[in-house]
Structure formats: structure tokens, C-alpha cells
């Protein structure tokens, strides 16, 4: 058993270094998996050190709890479909936040009144943020899993009610910090924070989930860090803050890619923002031209460079494997193929990359927006599959458009464009897309999977 606090501190330092290295290895897909193993080693060191602390008892409960959690974790992680990854991440996020809040509650219970000022502040923060993260993540999970409607759930006075609940929780927190030593006050704070977590995610629509999940990720990190202050553990402080930094960066990145402020995503309930702008479009008599799989096959066969632009519609149609087959077929003909991935393609940051990687698309073909945009003028055919708003040139050219300023893939600069779409219906933002009317664009209507299967057959025949 370890009784020397210096030894414990140094072992925890080893864990911290492992975690930072794990994140460092994520800078390239080549080493990323190794990094996860390094992170795992860090976690093993941390857990083993803690278990070896002098005076640890209740072994039966520790082992039982650890086993139950591990089994749930392994089964969940092994069986989850890659399209369901956002809800899985939301779930793990939530349980982490919940654990942080419970640790804070237990510490408060044990201390019975002899807490220093900074300890009670940390307990309040850990309980507050952890509970919001837990409840918010569960609602995000339910929405993504379609247990709840993915559409925004809004009602009058929603923001005012939300703020009132949050203020109520804050008031209880201040009472605790001011010296009220009653457990029901902390329990009340946790309950209000849980209610707030539910209410603040309810009005957020399915397509805004990348921002919400990133934000909840940051919350859980901060809750873990606050728990670190409660327990005087530098390990928790650092590890929690690493997660906090990551979640914050991704939140900002996602909001920027959607051309909206984080506040607008959280409190704007998107459906209401767009009203009134749709009428601005002038009907100039141009119409979209429909094409057939055979024509597209000919177009592709004569191309030197093809860029596939996948949107969430592709994943919904489960057509990733077919797209990869088509791409391989084209490559056999000596045609260069790349995939252009918009940052918000999918339901969480980087989701589309994972879906394509699962379909065995090599990662060196997956191009980020900034990397692929200069290549569109040299692209013979841009194949847009189930993407809409992220390729709408109005984001560059029309200051009246609600998506004006949003970074987009410059598909309209390609020599020719084929858009695969079910119908002319507008995308999530409800905005017409001029790309479909451009002279170089043709439309291949129908279910994405069916269209690609037909296309494969046609390319093979040509």
C-alpha cells in the first residue's frame, strides 16, 4: 500500500503525461491508435495508484461497481453503429458528468460542516456543471436516438423559464457558499441543475447537435476539473481541463462552420430565425436540369478528377459502401477521386470522416474544406450526395441570405456538378440553392443509395 503522498503525486503525474501524449498522438491518423493505448496506460496507472492508497476499504462495492460499469461500457462500445456514434458520445459524456456531481455530493455529506471556502465553491461548481451535463446529455441522447423528436421543442417564455431555473440553482449555490450547511440545499441545487439541463437541450434541433455535444463535452471536463479542486487532486484538475479545452475549441469551431454564434444555437431555436428571409429570392426563370445515371456515368468516365461531396443524407441512406465501390471503380480507370468533407457534415464534429473510414475509404482521400476548396476549379465532376446548405453559393454572394458568411465547399467552381437528391426540397436551413440552377449543374433525383447502385452498373457498362 502506498502511504507516501509524494509517490502518489508522481504516479499521478505519469498519468497526466500519458493523457497529454494521447492527445498529441491524435494529430495524425497514423499514430492515433497508439495514442489511445498510451492514454489507456495512463488511466490504468491512475486507477491502480488510487486503489493502492492507504485505508481504502469497501472492496466488494468497488469491484462490483467497476464490473457493472465496465460491462455496460464494453457492450455499448462494441455494439454501437457508427451512425449512432453521436448519441454514444453523448451518453458517455453524461455518465461522466453524473459521476462528478455524485462525488461532489458525497464529499459534502462526509465533510459535515468543516469545509473551507474554496472547497465548498468547488463542490457547488462540480455538482452544478456535472448535473447539467448529465441531464443535457441524456436529452441529447434521446433526441439523436429518436426517442424524442429531433425537432426543436419550443414554447412561450422558454428562455425566461430556463434562466429562472438556473438562477434558482445559483441562489442555492450561493447559500451553500455563504455557509448554509444543509444537505437538502445541495440536493435541491442538483435537482434544479438537472431540470435546467433537460430544458436547455430540448429546444435545440437535431442539426445543431454538433455544437451541443461539443459543449456538453466541455462541461463534463470542467465538472471533472472542479471535482479535482474538491479532492485536491492535480490529476483531475489537469485531465478535466484538457477535456474542457477540447470541448470549447470544438464548440467554437462547429458554431463557426454553421455561421452562428454559440448563443444563437443555444437560445435561438433555429426554426424561428429563418422566417421572412425566404421571400427574398427572385425567380429568374432558370430551372434545374434532370439527368440520368447513364449520362452521369459517361460524364464520370471522361473525367480526370472527381470530388465526392457527402452530406448527412448519404449516411441516412447508408450508401457509404456503395460510394466507396464507385470511387474504386473510377480509380481503376485512372481517375483521381477525393472526398470533400464539410466540418458540420454529420451529427457531431468529424462524424462523416468516421462513417467513410468505416466504409474503408482510405483517410488520405478525406479532404478538409480548406484543403479541397482550391482544387474545385480543376475538378471535372463534383458529385454532391445528400448535401445542400454546405454547398450553397449564396453563403458567399448573397448578404441577404441567412447562411451568408458560412464557410462552404466551393462546388460551384467545379467544371461540372452532379447533385444527387431526392427532390428539389430545400435543405435544413430552408433556403433555396442556386447551385442547382447553374448551367454546369445537373440533378440526379432519387434515393442516394439507389442512384449510386445504378451509377455503378452504368460505369461498369460504359
Amino acid at each position: 500500500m502506498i502511504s507516501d503522498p509524494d509517490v502518489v503525486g508522481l504516479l499521478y503525474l505519469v498519468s497526466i503525461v500519458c493523457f497529454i501524449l494521447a492527445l498529441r498522438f491524435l494529430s495524425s491518423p497514423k499514430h492515433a491508435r497508439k495514442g489511445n493505448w498510451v492514454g489507456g496506460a495512463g488511466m490504468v496507472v491512475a486507477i491502480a495508484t488510487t486503489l493502492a492508497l492507504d485505508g481504502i476499504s469497501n472492496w466488494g462495492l468497488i469491484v462490483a461497481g467497476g464490473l457493472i460499469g465496465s460491462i455496460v461500457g464494453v457492450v455499448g462500445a462494441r455494439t454501437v453503429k457508427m451512425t449512432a456514434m453521436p448519441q454514444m458520445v453523448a451518453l458517455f459524456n453524461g455518465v461522466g458528468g453524473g459521476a462528478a456531481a455524485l462525488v461532489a455530493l458525497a464529499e459534502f455529506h462526509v465533510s459535515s460542516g468543516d469545509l473551507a471556502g474554496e472547497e465548498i465553491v468547488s463542490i457547488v461548481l462540480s455538482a452544478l456543471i456535472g448535473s447539467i451535463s448529465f441531464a443535457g446529455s441524456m436529452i441529447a441522447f434521446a433526441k439523436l436516438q429518436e426517442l424524442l423528436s429531433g425537432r426543436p421543442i419550443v414554447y412561450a417564455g422558454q428562455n425566461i423559464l430556463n434562466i429562472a431555473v438556473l438562477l434558482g440553482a445559483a441562489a442555492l449555490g450561493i447559500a451553500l457558499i455563504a455557509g448554509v450547511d444543509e444537505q437538502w440545499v445541495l440536493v435541491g441545487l442538483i435537482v434544479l441543475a438537472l431540470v435546467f439541463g433537460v430544458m436547455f437541450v430540448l429546444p435545440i434541433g437535431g442539426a445543431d447537435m454538433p455544437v451541443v455535444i461539443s459543449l456538453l463535452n466541455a462541461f463534463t471536463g470542467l465538472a471533472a476539473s472542479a471535482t479535482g479542486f474538491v479532492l485536491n487532486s492535480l490529476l483531475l484538475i489537469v485531465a478535466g481541463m484538457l477535456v474542457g479545452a477540447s470541448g470549447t475549441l470544438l464548440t467554437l469551431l462547429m458554431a463557426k462552420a454553421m455561421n452562428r454564434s454559440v448563443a444563437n444555437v443555444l437560445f435561438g431555436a433555429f426554426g424561428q430565425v429563418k422566417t421572412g428571409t425566404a421571400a427574398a429570392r427572385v425567380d429568374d426563370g432558370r430551372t434545374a436540369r434532370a439527368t440520368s445515371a447513364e449520362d452521369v456515368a459517361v460524364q464520370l468516365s471522361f473525367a480526370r478528377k472527381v470530388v465526392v461531396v457527402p452530406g448527412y443524407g448519404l449516411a441516412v441512406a447508408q450508401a457509404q459502401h456503395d460510394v466507396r465501390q464507385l470511387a474504386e471503380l473510377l480509380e481503376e480507370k485512372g481517375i483521381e477521386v477525393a472526398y470533400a468533407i464539410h466540418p458540420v457534415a454529420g451529427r457531431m464534429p468529424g462524424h462523416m470522416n468516421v462513417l467513410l473510414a468505416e466504409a474503408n475509404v482510405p483517410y488520405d482521400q478525406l479532404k478538409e474544406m480548406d484543403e479541397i476548396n482550391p482544387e474545385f476549379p480543376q475538378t471535372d465532376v463534383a458529385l454532391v450526395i445528400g448535401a445542400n446548405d454546405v454547398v450553397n453559393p449564396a453563403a458567399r454572394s448573397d448578404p441577404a441570405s441567412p447562411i451568408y458568411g458560412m464557410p462552404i465547399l466551393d462546388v460551384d467552381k467545379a467544371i461540372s456538378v452532379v447533385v444527387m437528391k431526392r427532390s428539389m426540397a430545400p435543405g435544413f436551413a430552408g433556403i433555396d440553392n442556386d447551385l442547382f440552377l447553374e448551367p454546369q449543374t445537373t440533378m440526379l433525383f432519387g434515393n442516394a443509395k439507389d442512384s449510386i447502385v445504378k451509377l455503378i452498373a452504368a460505369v461498369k457498362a460504359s
Partner: protein
Amino acid sequence: MNQEIVLGVYVFIMAIFVGFEVISRVPSVLHTPLMSGTNFIHGIVIVGAITVLGFADDGFTRAIGFVAMVLASANVVGGWFVTDRMLEMFKRRPEERK
């Protein structure tokens, strides 16, 4: 404020800088594994859960600590396996393709 808390705040601030520095190098291709990987890292609250449960000597604390232990270990184990599963899928172009 005592010395320990001041040290904690120091380390906290430094960790913000290290975090932003390291995370900003992660390419967007790997943003989903980054999220699940950081998910795994915040599973470090398991250390808190073990401490609470391991030193608990009344029913209430044991119950709370036990639930925390279950949640935290699901977080750690699930977060790690799901990250590993995803990273395994990221492959280079296979050599044999003609």
C-alpha cells in the same frame, strides 16, 4: 486561500494552455475520435469515485459512491473501447489495389 488551492489554480491555468495547444493540432478528420478520446479522459473522475467509495463509512456515502463508481467505470471503459474501435478503421490506402 491556502497554498494547495493556489497551486491548483496555477496548474489549472497551465492546463488550459497545454490543452488548447495540443488540441488545435488535431485534424478535423479525427474530431470524432478526439471527442470520444477526451470523453475517455474525463472518465478520470473514477479516481474521485474510488476515493469516495473507498473511504465511505455510512450507508448514504456508500450508495452515492457506488453509483458514481458504476457511472465512472462505464465512462472509462466505454470511452476507451469506442475510441479504439474508431481509430482502427482509419487506414491508409491498401497496397494491393491496382
